[in-house]
């Protein structure tokens, strides 16, 4: 059995699955239930300076669905905790005392001045918490007050506040990044310069989930009006994975520990984040959809996967895929593949044909009896047929062996690697000498 124990910037937990700072970690009651269910740690919902913020009294969430009403994306307009600071601190202390083996990180968001940070950090330290996470990412409500994403979108502010925090606490400091920015590396660099021990990403994405076409108002609608919220859930995972990878593969940032967040729902999602550089993952929407129990599947799944791969600890998975993330101009243009349809698995729906015939390269043939086959002379291996096929592994991409002739181009597949930088069509090509 692989060892799932995690050590993230010195914060230990029995597994790498933490709950993200969000509604599920707002209260002692919830966090105790989470720990009973098996979660390795939590980031307590963001604390602020009293008086507490107030939340709207109407809908806080909007959703988008896939088939069968599967929740794919959630949007929220909830603010940081709306409970008094002292009450949260007392509850954090109580839970940490009873669950000393679990990670207890406290998320913080106070005005962009040094004094409030100097005030709140000792109070958090006193609870016995293992670390703090700076919420520089919340995209709604708080940003309008000069906090959250308003800080996270200005690298200089991130650096300044991180430096203040590091000067006022011995606890590890994790800086949580907003994705509502052009280049995620800039705020990560700023956090590093400020002395951050780690970054966590992504926070939620500015979004409007839908529009009520009778009220002509965005959802969620409060008395006929709606405001943008923060988007999260499985739908944001690809955006989060890319941002994690951008940091992990940057030479200047490659040593920064990353806590991966964004649509993690199953063990597989967690493993993907970790392979791209995350030391652990944080989960929110999945538990808001299915409850805390899903961590059991994450534990059994990751454990089985590590065993299958002959890995004995989670550290052996972290960053495993980072060397294979590259720029487009480094991709091998001499690699040639062709789609192949397995007629035994094919259910003859014709979706591959529609996709290829209407929108791609007319590389799929359809017979009178609805047999579908790939025309190698037309196939560019774009993968669209694989993506739209409803049956797993029915259409696969088969690599052409070097020395064979690609019927589309009439050229022999070359064995040597060659990318765009040396391609004759590239005006800026450098001669491969």
């Amino acid at each position, binding site marked *: 059995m692989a060892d799932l124990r995690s050590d993230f910037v010195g914060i230990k937990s029995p597994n790498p699955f933490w709950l993200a700072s969000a509604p599920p970690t707002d209260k002692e009651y919830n966090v105790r239930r989470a720990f009973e269910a098996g979660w390795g740690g939590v980031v307590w919902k963001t604390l602020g300076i009293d008086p507490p913020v107030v939340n709207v009294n109407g809908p806080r969430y909007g959703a988008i669905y896939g088939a*069968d009403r599967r929740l794919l994306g959630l949007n929220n307009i909830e603010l940081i905790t709306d409970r008094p600071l002292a009450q949260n601190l007392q509850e954090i202390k109580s839970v940490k005392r009873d669950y000393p083996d679990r990670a207890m990180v406290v998320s913080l968001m106070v005005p962009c001045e040094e004094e409030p940070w100097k005030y709140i950090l000792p109070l958090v330290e006193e609870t016995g918490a293992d670390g703090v996470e700076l919420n520089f990412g919340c995209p709604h409500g708080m940003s309008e007050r000069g906090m959250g994403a308003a800080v996270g979108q200005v690298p200089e502010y991130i650096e300044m506040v991180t430096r203040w925090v590091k000067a006022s606490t011995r606890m590890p400091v994790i800086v949580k990044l907003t994705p509502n920015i052009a280049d995620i590396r800039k705020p990560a660099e700023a956090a590093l310069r400020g002395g951050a021990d780690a970054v966590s990403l992504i926070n939620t994405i500015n979004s409007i989930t839908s529009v009520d076409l009778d009220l002509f108002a965005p959802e969620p609608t409060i008395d006929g009006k709606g405001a943008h919220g923060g988007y999260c859930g499985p739908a944001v995972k690809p955006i989060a994975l890319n941002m994690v990878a951008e940091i992990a593969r940057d030479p200047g940032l490659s040593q920064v520990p990353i806590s991966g967040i964004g649509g993690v729902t*199953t*063990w*597989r999602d967690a493993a993907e984040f970790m392979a791209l550089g995350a030391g652990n993952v944080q989960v929110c929407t999945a538990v808001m959809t*299915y*409850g805390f*129990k*899903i961590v*059991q*599947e994450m534990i*059994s*799944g990751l*454990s*089985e*996967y590590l065993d299958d791969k002959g890995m004995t600890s989670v550290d052996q998975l972290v960053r495993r895929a980072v060397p294979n993330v590259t720029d487009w101009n480094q991709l091998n243009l001499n690699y040639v593949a062709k789609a192949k349809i397995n007629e035994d*698995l094919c259910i003859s729906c014709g979706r591959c044909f529609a996709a290829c015939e209407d929108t791609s390269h007319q590389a799929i043939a359809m017979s009178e009896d609805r047999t579908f086959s790939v025309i190698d002379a037309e196939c560019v291996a774009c993968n669209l047929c694989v993506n739209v096929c409803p*049956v*797993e592994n029915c259409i696969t991409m088969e690599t052409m062996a070097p020395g064979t002739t690609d019927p589309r181009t009439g050229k022999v597949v070359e064995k040597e690697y060659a990318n765009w930088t040396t391609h004759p069509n590239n005006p800026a090509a450098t001669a491969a000498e």
Partner: protein
Amino acid sequence: MSQKVFEPGISAGRLEADAYAAQFSDLHPPLDPHAALVAADRCYFCHDAPCITACPTDIDIPLFIRQIATGTPDAAAKTILSQNIMGGMCARVCPTEQLCEQACVREEAEGKPVKIGQLQRYATDHLQEQGKHPFERGEATGKRVAVVGAGPAGLSCAHRLAMLGHDVVVHDARPKPGGLNEYGIAAYKTPDGFAQAEVDWLMQIGGITLKNGSALGADITLEGLKADHDAVFLGMGLGGVNALGATGENKAGVLDAVDFIADLRQAGDVAQVPIGRDVVVIGGGMTAIDAAVQAKLLGALNVTLVYRRGRDRMNASVFEQDLAASKGVRIVNHAVPVAVHGNGAVREIEFEYVDADMKGTGQMLRLAADQVFKAIGQTLEGDALPALEGRKIKVDGTGRTSVDGIWAGGDCASGGDDLTVTAVAEGRDAAIDIHMALVG
């Protein structure tokens, strides 16, 4: 079509030789990986799920289905088997339409439950076909436990005891282990030798010695077992068959349905099993259905299942009743046998129609019969057993009998339905209680 189907009397080979394989093939062919993923996708991962409550072994169904959905069927199998070591057999024989699948919220929403039974089979087959056994034997306790009966209750109890580090000896009167899984269930529910394969897989835990051909009362005594072991678990099922109470019931051709099913299961070639042209089965439970359907599959021309009460009172599920009907079995309700006619061997059986209170109406029914299969319940056999409750061994919630050091479970014990899955749960729970008593 073979002319032999019309031949009167009892004979083997009524069908064309090549017809039998299809007749006795898997009732529910296994899901392929694609079908399993589509089926798993439908589970809502309900909180405090009604399907778990409906399962006698409390399998965490939403969790194992989620594990299938996330591509880890072996983890799913472990979730199942940790609660029910015979999850593979139960996936095949459980009346899921009365248990988990009836409770599924999608049955309520759409009349189409998640295919829990088939998904369970997908996961357990995936693990067991690799020969993997996901449990390890605990540290040896030095305690010895005797188990009587190598059926679902006995083997479930033995496996859990072995896991907990005890040494277990399982005695069974029959030549093969498995109990009703091996001898008492229709062939089309568990083809390809699955019952024995499951026993072999289960035995991988170690620490269990099987003694077949060792019958309580003949080869071993309860007193002897008790003297030689730290605890005894009785799971020998019900050996006897109730009498019809009809005149002439001792005529040739009047048989116990359980024997017919056992003979069929043990036959190397089902084509060699003789069957009547006209067959009457008496009873309303799963055994009656299994006998009637298999008589039909063997090529009997007319098979009639007669039950003394209405269809709603039959122990066989609606699914089973419909299965019988779809195979061409005629179901007659509200009739009790009064006389078996024939010169030496049965030729006809006579019934009287009865009202809802089982009172005779004076209206009679005569059915031609070359064979009559009795499936009207079984009885406990044996002397010097612990105290009974009704006609079964009296047990408390964890299987304790009236005698200190003796536990019981499965069909021979009071409480619970006579289902494979219930027997497994009772065997498991008794094992845990025995463990607590021995080392707790």
